[in-house]
C-alpha cells in the first residue's frame, strides 16, 4: 500500500529536558482512518503537530504526501501544508467574525488549491444555505462542520484532527465523526485523529496507543469497550 504519511524514528524534546516523543515510527496508507490515543502527556498532540508540519521533530524524518518535510524551510512547508493537508481542531480555529463562506474561501484566497466548490462542500457537511451567516452565530457542532468543510475544500490528501469532538455532546460528536468517516470512504482522504474518547476512536480503522512518547500498541481498531480497556491497561502500566 502506498504510504501518505511516514514517520521514521521521530523524537521531539522541549527545553528543560521534557521529552514528548522518543523514536516514534508510523506509516499511514492512503484512505486510512487512524486514531491516536494515550494518557495526558503521552505525546499524542506533539505527534500530530510533527506529522502535520506544524512543529519540527528534534530527530528523525517525516514524509508527508511524498515529500520529506522535517527539514523543509518555513515557506515551502506552509505551502506544502496548504496544498495537501486539512486541519480540524477542538477549538474550531475559524475566523468567527467572518461568514461561513468567507471562512471556506480563505484557503483559496491564500493561494491554496480550489479543488472542490464551496457550495458542494457545504452541502456535503449538511450546512447548505448557511453560507452567509457569521461563524460566531453558529453552534459548536455547526462550527465544527464548517471546520471540516474548510479542511475538505482544498481536496487534501490528509486531514489532521486534534480532539475534533472534545467540545461537543455525544450525538453532535457522532455526526462530526461520521463526516470524517465519509471523507475517508468516499473521497479516499487519509485521517489522523488524536482523541481521548474511546467512542470517537471506534470510528477509525486503526488504533495507535502512545505511552510516554513511544508507540505502545498499533493494531486494527476494536470496539469502544475494548479500546477503553486497552487505554486503561496502557495508563496503569505507566503509573506502576
Amino acid at each position, binding site marked *: 500500500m502506498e504510504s501518505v504519511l511516514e514517520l521514521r524514528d521521530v523524537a521531539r524534546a522541549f527545553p528543560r529536558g521534557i521529552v514528548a516523543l522518543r523514536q516514534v515510527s508510523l506509516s499511514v496508507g492512503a484512505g486510512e482512518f487512524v486514531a491516536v490515543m494515550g494518557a495526558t502527556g503521552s505525546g499524542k498532540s506533539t505527534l500530530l503537530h510533527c506529522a502535520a508540519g506544524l512543529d519540527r521533530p528534534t530527530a528523525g524524518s517525516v514524509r508527508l504526501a511524498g515529500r520529506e518535510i522535517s527539514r523543509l524551510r518555513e*515557506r515551502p512547508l*506552509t505551502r506544502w*501544508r496548504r496544498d495537501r493537508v486539512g486541519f480540524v481542531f477542538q477549538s474550531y*480555529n475559524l475566523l468567527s*467574525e467572518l461568514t461561513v463562506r468567507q471562512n471556506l474561501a*480563505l*484557503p483559496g*484566497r*491564500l493561494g491554496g488549491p480550489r479543488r472542490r466548490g464551496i457550495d458542494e462542500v457545504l452541502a456535503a457537511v449538511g450546512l447548505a444555505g448557511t453560507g452567509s451567516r457569521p461563524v460566531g452565530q453558529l453552534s459548536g457542532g455547526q462550527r465544527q462542520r464548517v471546520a471540516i468543510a474548510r479542511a475538505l475544500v482544498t481536496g487534501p490528501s490528509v486531514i489532521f484532527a486534534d480532539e475534533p469532538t472534545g467540545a461537543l455532546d455525544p450525538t453532535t460528536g457522532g455526526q462530526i465523526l461520521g463526516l470524517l468517516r465519509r471523507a475517508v470512504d468516499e473521497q479516499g482522504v487519509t485521517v489522523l485523529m488524536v482523541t481521548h474518547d474511546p467512542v470517537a476512536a471506534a470510528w477509525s480503522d486503526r488504533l495507535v496507543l502512545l505511552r510516554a512518547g513511544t508507540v505502545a500498541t498499533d493494531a486494527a481498531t476494536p470496539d469502544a469497550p475494548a479500546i477503553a480497556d486497552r487505554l486503561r491497561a496502557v495508563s496503569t502500566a505507566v503509573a506502576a
Partner: protein
Amino acid sequence: MIRQALRSNPWSFLGPFSTQLLAAALVAAGLGITTSFDRAPLNPAARQALTDSGLADIAIIFVMIAIYLSIIIVGVTMAATIAQQARDIALVRAIGATPGRVRRSVAAQAAIVAVPATLLGVPVGSLGGREWISGVVTHDLAPAAVTFHPHPAALPIALAVTVGTSLAGALIAAIRPSRKRPAAALAETAAPHRRLGRVRTTAGLILMLGGTTLSITIADLDAETTDALGLLVMLALCVGAGLLGPALLRVAAVAGRLFGDTGRLAGDAIAVRAKALSSALVPLTLAIAFTAVKVIILKTTEHKTGTAPAAADRWLEYSGTSVYVAFAAVAAVNTLVTVILSRRRDLAVTQLAGATRRRALTVVVCEALLVTATALVVGAAVAAITTLPLLHTALGTWVPWMPVGWLVTGVLATATLVLAGTALPAALAMRRPPIEVVS
C-alpha cells in the same frame, strides 16, 4: 476585575497612557507659557508690545486646543481599550457583578492609568514649554526678559483634564456591555454586532452637516471670526467623521475587493473590525486635517500674495501644529497596535489555513493601505471644507494651493505611520509558531 484587566492585556492600556501623558504635557506647557508671559519682568512699553503681538492669546488658544484634543483623543483611546474588555465584562456580569460595579471598575481603570501618566506628563510639558519660550525669544518674538515659569496649579489642572476625559471615554464605552443581560452580552462578544447604532449615525451626520453649514455661513464674516470658528468647524467634522468611521471604512473594504484575493481578505478583515479601526481614524483624520489646513493657508497666502510670511511667524505656526500632529499620531499608532494585537489569534488561524508568514503580512499591509487611503480622503475633505471659507475671507479665492512636495510627504508620512502601527506589530506577533498561539 481591575487587576485582571490590567494583567490580561497590559498593552491595551498603552494607548490611553501615552495620550494622557501627552495631554497632560500639552496642558502643562500651555499653562506654563501663559504664566511665563504674565510674570516676565517687563516695563510697560515692552508689556504693551507683547500684548499687541498676540503671543499670550496664542498660548491660551494652545491650552484650549490641548483640552479639546484631549477630550477627543484620550476619550477615543480609553473607549477603545474598554471596548476590548467586552468579553471580560460579560463574564463578570454572568458571575454576578452588577452594572454599577462594572462601571465603577471601568472608572477605576481610567483613573489608575491617568494618574501616573499625568505625573510624568506635567514635567515633560514643562520642559517643552521651556523650549518653546526659548524658541520664541531666539526668534525675536518676545523680549529676552521672558523666561519660563511653570504654572503653580499645572498638576491639578492637568489631572482634572486627563482623569475627566478618560473617565468620560471609559464610561461611555462601558454603557452597552454593563447594561446588557449577561447571556446576551456573552453571545454578542462571540459574534459582535456589526451594525452601526442609529444614535451614532445620526450624531455623525448632524456633526458633518453642522460643520459644513457653519463653514458656509462663516465664509461671509470678517477674517478674525472666521479664523476662530474655523477650528470649531474642523473639530466638528473630525468627530463626525469618526462617528461615521465604520461606515466609511466599510466603503474602503468594498474598494479593497478590486485588488484581487489579498485585497479581498484585507477588505473582509477591515469590514469586521470597522468599529475598532475607526478609533484610529479619528486621530489620523485630525492629524491630516490639522496639518493640511495650516499648510494650505500658509502656502496659498504665499502663492496668492507672492510674499512668504516672516520666518518667525512660520515657526510659530508650524511649532504649534507639529505638537498637535505628534499627539494625534501617537494616539493613532497606539490604537492600531491595540487592534493588531487583539488579532494575534486570527493571524495564527490564517497561517494554519495555509498563509505563509509573508502572505499574512501582505494582507495586513493591504489593510493598512486601505485605512491610510480612507484617512487621507476624509482628512482632505475635512481640510477642504475648513479652509475654503478661510481662504475666501482672507484672500478672496476659492482655490487652495499646496506644493506637490508637501502633498507627497504627507501621503508617505501617513502611510508610514499606519504601517508602523499595523505591519510592524503583526510581523512581531507572527514570530511565534501559529499552533502555539491558538492552543
